């Protein structure tokens, strides 16, 4: 698993990369009450704003970590945004993407490096 400075995690499954936010990020956000997901099938560039998360405190964006295509979104989060607090590293993934350049994943932090960043 790889981690971004924006507190996203990336899990590679074959040609696909699954993206979510870290436990640390979900704690910092507070109770999540709304998640707006992108459309499936759209092509995105790295750093495009693709997801909006609203907690009781504020709205924040999730940026596309890679260039590529959004191939699947986690619709369950629209109905149950609180899953982001309950299981951020598992059930509450946001989207799956097919990167146009899979090597971009390697630019991101390892778990150890990420833990250092947030400690």
């Amino acid at each position, binding site marked *: 698993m790889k981690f971004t400075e924006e507190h996203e995690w990336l899990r590679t499954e074959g040609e696909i990369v699954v993206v979510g936010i870290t436990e640390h990020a979900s704690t910092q956000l507070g109770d999540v009450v709304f998640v707006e997901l992108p459309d499936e099938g759209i092509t995105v560039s790295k750093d495009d704003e693709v997801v909006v998360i609203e907690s*009781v405190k504020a709205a924040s964006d999730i940026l596309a970590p890679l260039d590529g295509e959004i191939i699947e979104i986690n619709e369950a989060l629209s109905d149950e945004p609180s899953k982001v607090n309950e299981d951020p590293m598992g059930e509450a993934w946001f989207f799956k993407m097919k990167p146009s350049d899979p090597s971009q994943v390697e630019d991101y932090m390892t778990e150890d490096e990420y833990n250092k960043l947030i400690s």
Partner: protein
Amino acid sequence: MAQALKRTPLYELHCELGAKLTEFAGYEMPVQYSLGILGEHQHTRTKAGLFDVSHMGQITLRGSSYQETALALEKAIPMDVLGLKVGRQRYGFLTTDGGGILDDLMFSNREDHIFVVLNAACKDSDIVHLRTLLEPEISIEVIENRALIALQGPASETVLSEFNSQISAMKFMDIETLSIAGAECWISRSGYTGEDGFEISIPSSAAEAITRSILSKQEVEFVGLGARDSLRLEAGLCLYGHDIDEETTPVEASLTWAIQKARRTNGERANGFLGDKIITQQLDMGTYRKRVGFLPQTRAPMREGVEIYETESSKEVIGKITSGGYGPTVGHPVAMGYINSEYEDSNDNLFGELRGKRVPVKIAKLPFVPLNFKR
């Protein structure tokens, strides 16, 4: 260099109990505790939440008699101060020359003086303003040696009665001096959550001990500013600096219920307050815009600053959200703000612009939750 943040007498208790702290109005204040904003909000609505509001300004006004003090204060606020009975409190606001709102406040008749509670962010300028208007006939004392806490929610009466049995006899907006654990407390049955509850002014030296005893009751949780905001928003109550300010008049802000008959056209003491011309004219003739509730029609919260349009493509901005977010008791986003008066009673879908997209929103009646005051 930035000024050091001020702390309330309960600061160390907040830290000990794991509060997440934030800067608010120059104070280091708890935004939430371990229960979290949602949990603290729900707890207040169903049981009892305890808030530290010691950052708010507490002042007393004293003239040669209550009557003299009341008539003097009536120059600064468009409320009937003279007609307020001993032991009663009212909501009010300081007005500007232009009819805007300088701050909103609570004031009470304490027999030989008036006790006023002001917003933390405005208190210093309010005091200067009041001194200019009222001194030297009225002496203004700033109470710096008292903490202020609020116990809010349906269990408040039961909890506080354990400390003093006279609590139960109090009605909404009564204020009395009562002893709690041997300390002289000024207690009013009021608050800013829409729930029954009490605001308790405590000598600073006794504040931590009393707060700990109240917190030790099973029904009570400490609640931070985060939930305080969602509670007051659902209750349709204004937050100064957001929903009301010097640019909004009380009539535009739908606060005319707080201006008693005695101060209106044909009242015994009509006018005679700052901004009276504009406010009286608006009371009689109406305004171009009004503060209303907004109910977003999707699950996306509409927050402060979101602009309102009539249709999905219309160009003219017809309103603006001044406070908004998720309403935990409503279970849905709620908001308030201003709308051009012609749309005030609209039942149609209007549109708020969220991240470049027009999202449907309807005008809603305030409050969003029933008010549970013990009248």
